[in-house]
């Protein structure tokens, strides 16, 4: 099994983006997402694209890696483009059988495509350069104010980090169960759909049974070490903002504002 199976394909590194505080990255990603969604001006798109390109460079993302990120979304992107191209009413450019290509279709189609690409890239930049653990810690910190209104932020963060911790363990276990069941003649990859679904049941039932057993034991192990929900925990790793974080936050903030201004007054 791969060493670092994590959600969102975290790639460890030491680039500028890697070293940013995870809270900065989450906030910046959020600002970029909103900016991309609000943007409707070519100049805005140019600015956003430039910033995204800059971020890719700073994160040392190679073109191959970039392609790897976008490939899984390929079909989805093409489909979205085609639907916009062919089904937007407006001034016709050319006829394709019963369908017609319109000026507006081309405009909105490519705008949508570009939006999606920018969204995917900025989201991926976050997960590529930040370990799930850091994302959890950052969310815990950012959501802290919601504790006041009774949201169990620490407990939710704990649940998330435990879920992440058990991803590799359960994957390994699933592999083992698959092998055990295959050795007794279970069909996971052949036969008709019904048979495959039945095969899946023989995987899921033991997997769930063991997950519950694990959960029970883990709860004991946490209690042994004085874990009390609601009690005041501290953190060994304290998140700290540096100059670079303030710079990045200010930069993305300004960009976001510019996009907004262009939308409503441009």
């Amino acid at each position: 099994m791969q060493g670092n199976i994590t959600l969102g394909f975290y790639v460890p590194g030491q680039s500028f983006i890697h070293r940013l505080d995870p809270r900065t990255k989450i906030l910046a990603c959020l600002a970029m997402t909103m900016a991309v969604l609000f943007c409707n001006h070519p100049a805005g798109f140019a600015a956003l694209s430039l910033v995204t390109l800059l971020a890719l460079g700073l994160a040392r993302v190679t073109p191959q890696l970039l392609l790897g990120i976008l490939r899984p979304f390929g079909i989805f992107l093409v489909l979205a483009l085609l639907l916009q191209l062919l089904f937007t009413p407006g001034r016709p450019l050319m006829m394709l059988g019963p369908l017609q290509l319109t000026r507006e279709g081309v405009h909105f189609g490519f705008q949508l495509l570009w939006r999606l690409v920018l969204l995917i890239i900025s989201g991926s930049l976050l997960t590529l350069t930040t370990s799930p653990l850091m994302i959890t810690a950052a969310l815990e910190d950012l959501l802290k104010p919601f504790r006041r209104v009774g949201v169990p932020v620490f407990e939710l963060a704990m649940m998330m980090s435990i879920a992440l911790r058990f991803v590799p363990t359960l994957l390994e276990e699933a592999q083992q169960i698959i092998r055990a069941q295959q050795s007794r003649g279970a069909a996971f990859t052949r036969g008709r759909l019904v048979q495959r679904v039945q095969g899946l049941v023989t995987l899921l039932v033991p997997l769930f049974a063991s997950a519950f057993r694990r959960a029970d034991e883990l709860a004991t192990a946490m209690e042994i070490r004085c874990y009390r929900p609601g009690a005041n925990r501290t953190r060994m790793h304290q998140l700290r903002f540096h100059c670079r974080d303030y710079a990045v936050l200010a930069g993305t903030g300004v960009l976001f504002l510019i996009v907004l201004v262009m939308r409503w007054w441009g």
Partner: protein
Amino acid sequence: MCKISIQGLTHIYNYGQPGERVALQEINGEISPGELLAIIGPNGSGKSTLARHINALLLPTCGSVTVDGLNTADPASRWEIRRRVGMVLQNPDNQLVASVVEEEVAFGPENLGLPPEEVRQRVDRALSVAGLVEQRLRPPHLLSGGQKQRLAIAGALAMKPSCLVLDEPTAMLDPAGRREVMQTLLNLNRQDGLTIILVTHFMEEAVLADRIWVLSGGRLVMDGTPAQVFRCREALQKIGLALPGPAELAWRLRNCGWPIPDGIYRLEELVTCLVDLLTRNRSGGSS
């Protein structure tokens, strides 16, 4: 330091409900500070149930358990008892909480609400005691079984406990992992004076203890030094336990008429004894 006293401890699962089952009956005993106590017994004899009473995971149906004078039945002292009595469970995969080794060790101190610098210090110290400094940034699921159990021990040590209870910590390990874990435990007991209570079904591990408790059917049937306990071959056999290899060999040789003294259970002792006998025989025969 850590004095544990158990008085008239009886535990009944599902007490007063259908499926009631007596797990422990009238256990009495004291564990002194710095002692290495092994608890052995066949499956279902109540070893784990007893172990879980020492840090208030389970509470007595009758009788009492006190740790340094703190009663486990008192809710106010429960968390202090859990801090003082660290515990390591059998399955290394199910007791690790975090996805980085040093975060795992930090989990306990963080729960105590200690300041970050203090947590850092304790983590570094516990990792070096457990010999895991080089692995500190790795994910735990990539460690070997022995390393995972040493990590669990480090996690317990970071709470600065005065006593460590281990519930069959080596049952799921290979021989190398078993040796690593036992060596770590011996060092902690001999050098740092930590009280250790080791639940085990490996006689080779029980041999290393200062004292052995033998449980059978929920009762404490023997309490003595390894030499005393392993002298009672028949009694042990009756409850389904075998002697450790060297003790068994000594017993068989004795049965064949070899003049081997009682109470030998360690390999080194047996070897010295046999070498002694053989040289004496040879020199006796030649002269």
